[in-house]
């Protein structure tokens, strides 16, 4: 009996272990890495401007910071909705198990939040000082608190601010990388699951995070400018798209490398992975994630790199590519998180997952959680202007 037949014969009875019928990590755990990914990618754009002095990104630099902050505020929501005993969530901080990959989340999240808030406050200090002087009462108090009660806008003070910002952003890059690479490791560290258990997982998560975050910034910038009937800065979009192209080539290459490795190495239970990708995930992986949402944007990104388009057309294609890539990363998260759990540890069969509409981890909850960051962003925009004054 050859290897292929052996795998097929293992799956002949589609036997799922009795406790494997339930998919315990459902849509909230799809959403959690998706949100942290958006944060990471948006932060990369800000870092390119504030640390690496890529001037063309100036129009979206401040917005990227706020975008990252708004989504970071909501990163814990899916986790809290997922926990069986959410009221005990602080146990992870108070009595963490140092051996657990998951126990580090609270600390990494707290550091990320601290660094990001600090960057935002220093970047916006001149604006906040000016707004504080124009306001009174409670708002004045708020502005004083946000500016650390310093209204010194002298060139010397601003130079110090710039140094602090560069330091914080420099610190923020590894923190952001750890935040999301770590999320990948939570999956990569599960040796019982053959699709998750790969050292490539943190790398794949990190690059796809950059893809989703940069796509989100490009799309949000174009949409907001179009709604406000304001001109879109093509130079800025071009830089974003070039960065996006680089990260997406890396992300897609590693995603395919993982599949190729399983197929070529024929490691333990590879028949389960092959059966999964060609069976329950045939549509969501090969059709949607690979063909529609990866190959298509790769072709479009290639065209954008080698063909000169009119600005308006370039912007339209940029918006389209970004939308597809946002979907690609979401589907990729879905295929990893949900798909990985469809394989029973019996190595003989697959379970099914049917998302519910209502309920704590239902589709409605997903929609609500994805709306909340935009509400936060809107509120933040009232205090921290998105765009730099001309």
């Amino acid at each position, binding site marked *: 009996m050859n290897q292929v037949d052996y795998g097929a014969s293992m799956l002949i009875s589609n*036997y799922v272990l009795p406790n494997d019928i339930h998919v315990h990590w459902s849509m909230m755990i799809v959403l959690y890495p998706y949100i942290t990914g958006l944060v990471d990618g948006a932060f990369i754009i800000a870092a390119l401007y504030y640390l690496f002095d890529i001037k063309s990104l100036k129009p979206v630099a401040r917005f990227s910071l706020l975008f990252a902050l708004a989504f970071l505020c909501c990163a814990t929501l899916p986790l809290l909705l997922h*926990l069986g005993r959410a009221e005990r969530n602080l*146990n992870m901080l108070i009595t963490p198990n140092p051996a657990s990959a998951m126990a580090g989340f609270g600390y990494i999240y707290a550091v990320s939040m601290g660094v990001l808030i600090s960057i935002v406050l220093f970047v916006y200090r001149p604006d906040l000082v000016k707004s504080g002087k124009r306001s009174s009462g409670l708002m004045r108090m708020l502005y004083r608190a946000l500016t650390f009660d310093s209204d010194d806008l002298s060139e010397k003070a601003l130079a110090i601010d710039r140094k602090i910002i560069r330091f914080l952003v420099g610190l923020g890059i590894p923190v952001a990388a750890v935040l999301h690479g770590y999320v990948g490791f939570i999956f990569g560290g599960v040796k019982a699951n053959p699709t998750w258990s790969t050292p490539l997982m943190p790398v794949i998560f990190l690059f796809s995070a950059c893809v989703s975050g940069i796509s989100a910034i490009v799309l949000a910038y174009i949409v907001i400018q179009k709604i406000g009937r304001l001109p879109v800065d093509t130079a800025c979009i071009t830089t974003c798209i070039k960065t996006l192209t680089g990260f997406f080539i890396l992300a897609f290459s590693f995603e395919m490398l993982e599949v190729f490795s399983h197929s070529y190495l024929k490691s333990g239970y590879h028949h389960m992975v092959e059966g999964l990708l060609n069976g329950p995930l045939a549509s969501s992986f090969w059709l949607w994630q690979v063909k529609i949402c990866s190959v298509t944007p790769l072709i479009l990104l290639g065209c954008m790199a080698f063909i000169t388009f009119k600005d308006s057309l370039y912007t339209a294609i940029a918006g389209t590519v970004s939308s597809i890539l946002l979907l690609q990363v979401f589907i990729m998260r879905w295929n990893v998180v949900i798909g990985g759990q469809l394989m029973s*540890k019996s190595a003989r069969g697959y379970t099914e997952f049917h998302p519910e509409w209502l309920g704590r981890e239902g589709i409605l909850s997903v929609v609500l959680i994805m709306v909340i960051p935009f509400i936060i962003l809107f509120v933040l925009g009232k205090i921290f202007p998105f765009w730099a004054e001309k």
Partner: protein
Amino acid sequence: MKIVDFPPDMDRREFVKKVLNGVITGSLFLLFPMGSEGINLQEGLWPGELTEEIPGIRGRKYDIHNQQFAFIVDITRCIGCGACCVADKREYQVPDGFYRTWVERYIKDFDDQIYVDSPNGGLDGYQKPRDDISVEARDTFFVPKLCNMCKEPPCTQVCPVGATFITPDGFVLVDSERCVGCAYCIQACPYSVRFLNPVTRTVEKCTWCYHRIRRGLLPACVEVCPTGARKFGSLNDENCEVYKILKGPGVLTVLKQSMGTLPALYYMGQRLEVV
């Protein structure tokens, strides 16, 4: 060779009488409670009439650092009656659709294809042949599954709050008062013995009946197994069957050895097809 007539010396009336007597006697067991129900475990007491099943536990201080136990499943003895699953469900009021232990049925046909199932975790016993496949069975066997009590458990490693832990005497347990219900341990367990209890919303698993063992009683599933397919014992007791098997020359295997989890659950007569 002469074939002996059966039954040799029994007329039909006598045979029916004997069968009826057997049925009546057997049904009396249904009226009287099983051994495990006689114990008031909540109060930490054991009635005097319950004999000690694991020698060396009662009447002395339990030295948790110097105790070691093992569980052996003899596949060749399992008849798939499901009594172990029933005892377990009654012992812990396990919610329907979730299983601390279960029994799998393997059917092998003449083309060496393996068909596995475990309807309702084997709780109802395998009383009928499979009617969803139409193959000629060359061989069939049953495989009880339960917690492997790994010495290198991935579940305790990943628990973010230390709610699941390994005791000094080798038991992997869950503190439901601490569990946050993140289900990471469920993902990490290679044997899928864990589940999220829909009532308590915390993780639950087989404990080898640790509460009974500490009182010198066998795990509920071992106690009710009619064929001795499930065996449990202390490795400090040289006279116990488990000790003798483990130290003897017989072949024992563990599940998913390549995972490096070092289970304390061993299988006798293990088949190549079992994962």
